[in-house]
């Protein structure tokens, strides 16, 4: 029985459950060259186009920016910046309809191109001489987020430190109509392979698997030619089936492995990136060209010239459509993404973002509107096609019944929303929509539950604190009251004068007794001090024994070890001095790094030795780290001296 790796090497492919074969309709765009459109009048650049957090704004209205200039900064590991796709003036910074199913307005920078297309200074890197950290930094600074659709920051995947068995490059592009990756592979296979080289250097996988659907023979051949010199790169033509481009499905197809529920591919030694991301990484590293544009398939029967277009990030959809000869019909829809997982746009000023791979403007006859949803007849055609082996009709039932326990039991959250179930449903039930609503409901409930739990904990803690305070107060009062009572009882019936006399007498007696007592206390203190000294001496001896002989010889050559007291004291002193020195050195180093981080210019490269030891962080973090290190060193030094 050959091992899994041998089977993979031999070109074995596996299969995943279900899947559908919708008409692909890719021919109308896949065979044409990638079109380059003229500069649009306005670019709307949302500051967050990926999964994660937005960077901090670096520009203000009215400012002129150069092509490739960052508009936001990546001041957080979950942030990637956005860049000016061309030179021009920042016309506005404000809310704009988002390229998201919700179409909620989000912060976007409006750029008015000046037509000069003037680049900022570029600093290409040499892959052979650049260390990993600088590569990762460059990837992050170039604003690269997964271009297959999810938009996960690429530097986080490329910077994974767990061991990687397989780096899978996703070139499947299984969704109907879309041929952007296909076109990119046909025209840019060499650059893509350079990008894969960079990823391979960063992740050091056992093998690189490139999955591509077998309906793209030209792209596959181009990639094979480009990879011919690479030993561990395997190009696998997978059968055309939707959704074989899903991350989990492709992993199963190529390696027979399943990502355990709730885990990530890296947990089974796999990292997957999209082919477009590899291309963007190559451009960013080797040409210092940040992610400014991407290939978008513009297709549908309302267009006279459907084609793939190299569109600048921020290009409004309407400009793209017009470039391709858009003829608007009534009662139609425009879809961002493909027909299976894309979303309809409320208006056409929505911009192209880093994850937009397709604009689909179908005629009404091409993708007819939904008919009437009718009752589920439990035919379970949906279960037959579900790539996650779920039971969609059961999920529908429990979604309608709003039964979160049952939905969990039937693994609602393993649904990848590929739409295969709704595609085959004879009753035209929008199953995916039901699941989205159910998931959102459950997430909301969980958030509420967590909040309620926290509030309850806070409330209980506060109650406990108040109760404790109260009891403490009561105990103190009681004690005082008892003492007073006692005093009153002792002095029973005597009059005030007698009382006063007695008090004076008592005071005098106390003062007489004091010297004796003081002496006693002093003696005791002295004894304790002696005890402490003894203990310290004993400990010092131990330390001397713990210190390595050569150190001892080097630093205290004249001290014979057979004098325990003196030797111990000296050794302790030496250890203290060393600790202090180490602390100082550590603090200085940290401070240096912090300084370097603060003063670093974009082209400055952190020296490798330092950088490897101390991952890049923002200056403030470095300063804090340095402070912590100092404090720790001090503590260590202090503990040595006591």
């Amino acid at each position, binding site marked *: 029985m050959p091992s899994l790796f041998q089977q993979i090497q031999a070109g074995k492919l596996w299969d995943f459950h279900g899947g559908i074969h919708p008409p692909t309709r890719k021919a109308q765009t896949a065979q044409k060259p990638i079109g380059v459109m003229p500069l649009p009048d306005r670019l709307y650049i949302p500051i967050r186009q990926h999964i994660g957090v937005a960077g901090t704004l670096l520009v203000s209205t009215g400012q002129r920016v150069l092509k490739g200039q960052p508009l936001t900064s990546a001041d957080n590991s979950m942030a990637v910046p956005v860049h000016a796709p061309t030179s021009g003036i920042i016309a506005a910074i404000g809310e704009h309809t988002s390229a998201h199913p919700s179409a909620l307005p989000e912060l976007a920078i409006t750029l008015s191109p000046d037509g000069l297309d003037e680049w900022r200074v570029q600093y290409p890197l040499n892959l052979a001489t650049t260390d990993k950290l600088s590569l990762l930094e460059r990837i992050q600074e170039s604003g690269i987020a997964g271009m297959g659709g999810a938009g996960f920051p690429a530097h986080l995947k490329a910077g994974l430190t767990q061991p990687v068995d397989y780096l899978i490059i996703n070139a499947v592009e299984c969704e109907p109509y879309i041929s952007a990756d296909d076109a990119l592979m046909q025209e840019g296979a060499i650059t893509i392979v350079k990008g894969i080289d960079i990823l391979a250097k960063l992740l050091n996988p056992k093998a690189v698997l490139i999955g591509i659907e077998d309906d793209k023979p030209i792209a596959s051949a181009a990639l094979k030619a480009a990879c011919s010199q690479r030993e561990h790169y395997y190009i696998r033509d997978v059968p055309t089936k939707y959704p074989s481009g899903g991350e989990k499905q492709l992993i199963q197809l190529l390696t027979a492995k*399943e990502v355990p529920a709730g885990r990530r591919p890296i947990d089974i030694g796999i990292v997957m990136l999209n082919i477009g991301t590899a291309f963007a990484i190559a451009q960013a590293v080797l040409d210092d060209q940040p992610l400014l544009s991407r290939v978008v398939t513009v297709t549908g029967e309302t267009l006279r010239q459907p084609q793939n277009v190299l569109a600048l990030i921020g290009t409004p959809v309407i400009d793209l459509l017009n470039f391709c000869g858009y003829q608007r019909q009534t009662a139609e829809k425009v879809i961002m993404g493909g027909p299976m997982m894309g979303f309809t746009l409320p208006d056409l000023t929505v911009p192209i973002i880093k994850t937009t791979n397709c604009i689909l403007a179908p005629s009404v006859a091409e993708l007819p509107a939904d008919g009437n949803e*009718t009752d589920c007849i439990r*035919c379970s055609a949906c279960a037959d096609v579900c790539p996650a*082996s779920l*039971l969609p009709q059961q999920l529908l039932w429990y979604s309608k019944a709003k039964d979160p326990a049952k939905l969990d039991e039937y693994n609602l959250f393993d649904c990848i929303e590929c739409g295969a179930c709704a595609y085959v449903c004879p009753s035209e039930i929008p199953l995916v929509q039901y699941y*989205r609503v159910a998931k959102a409901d459950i997430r909301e409930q969980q958030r509420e539950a967590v909040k309620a739990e926290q509030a309850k904990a806070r409330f209980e803690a506060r109650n406990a604190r108040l109760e404790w305070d109260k009891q403490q107060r009561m105990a103190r009062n009681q004690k005082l009251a008892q003492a007073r009572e006692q005093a009153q009882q002792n002095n029973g019936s005597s009059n005030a004068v007698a009382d006063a006399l007695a008090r004076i007498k008592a005071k005098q007696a106390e003062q007489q007794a004091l010297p004796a007592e003081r002496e006693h206390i002093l003696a005791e203190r002295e004894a304790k001090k002696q005890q402490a000294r003894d203990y310290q001496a004993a400990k010092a001896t131990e330390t001397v024994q713990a210190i390595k002989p050569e150190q001892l010889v080097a630093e205290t050559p004249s001290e014979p070890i057979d004098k325990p007291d003196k030797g111990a004291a000296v050794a302790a002193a030496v250890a203290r001095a060393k600790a202090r020195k180490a602390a100082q050195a550590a603090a200085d180093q940290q401070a240096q790094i912090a300084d370097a981080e603060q003063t670093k210019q974009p082209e400055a490269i952190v020296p490798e030795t330092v950088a490897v030891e101390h991952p890049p962080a923002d200056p403030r973090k470095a300063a804090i780290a340095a402070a912590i290190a100092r404090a720790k060193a001090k503590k260590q030094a202090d503990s040595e001296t006591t």
Partner: protein
Amino acid sequence: MSFKITSSPHNRISRSTSEIMLLVVLACIPGIAVQAVLFGYGVLVQLLLAISTAWLAEALIMRLRAKKVLPRLKDHSALLTGVLLAISIPPYAPWWLIVIGTLFAIIIVKQLYGGLGNNLFNPAMAAYVVLLISFPLQMTQWLPSVSLQPESLHLLDAFCAVFSQYSCSGFSISQLQTGIDGISMATPLDTIRTDLAAGRTLTESLQSPVFYGIAGAGWLWVNLAYLAGGLLLLKLRVIGWRIPAAVLGGLFVCSLLSWLAAADTNPSPMLQLFSGATMLAAFFIATDPVSASTTNNGRIVYGVLIGFIIYIIRKYGGYPDGVAFAVLLANMAVPLIDYYTRPRTYGHKAKGAEK
């Protein structure tokens, strides 16, 4: 500008519920044709009655439930229920029998449970069982095949017989049921049961004129016709292979074992498969998606269960054929079967390995 906002996916396969139902009805046509030719035109009259009653009942309930009538009728589910019931009952059963049955199927079994998709039981089979229990005499008046009937009935005779229980020339149904030799003739399965109970061997029983060939005169052809229709449905992917294969497999294995054990007192597997309502049950009745199991493994269990119960009822039960009872009993087990045959979800451990 306003654009249509819809949820993904935006494309769908073209086959709808209504088309599926209609295809099933169309696939019944070969069987119905053979039935009409070999057992008389009564079945056509029954179909007419059943379909019109089904539509009326469905429309009535839809009005009561304040839903649009026409789209619901167009899903053809009522039509299919009517057709299945009509071809299951004796061709010359009185008109009120099929009307009562259809009303029961549509109104009580289907609509009172919540309409299409929500009924626990197969409407046609539930109605069949109700009729069988309530009107045992009328429900067992199967005429022998046309070639054995003393009088040949024309289409007009069929109407007369169904509505008045007398043919136009004045023969009563029981007279028509009586063979040329003056002995009343039952279905092949019934004949075997009666003969075996009377102590005769199977070989003797098979001498009876109702048996020609391996499964009884006419019945073989009817079953072959339904088999052809069923294979067509399979080819068109209207039904899956699991349920029919499991029903036939279950029945075949049970009857094969008993036949091997005692060939004299047990009908051969081939007789079992091509007699009675076996093929109709396997391809058209057990495959009703609403009341069948919904998981792939569950469908096998469900089918085998039906095949097994059919065999048990045919061998030990009080009724000649057990299809309707078998289907209803299996329907009851569906929630349980479904629960225990859930497939392993991607990324999850097998159920046994869980926790």
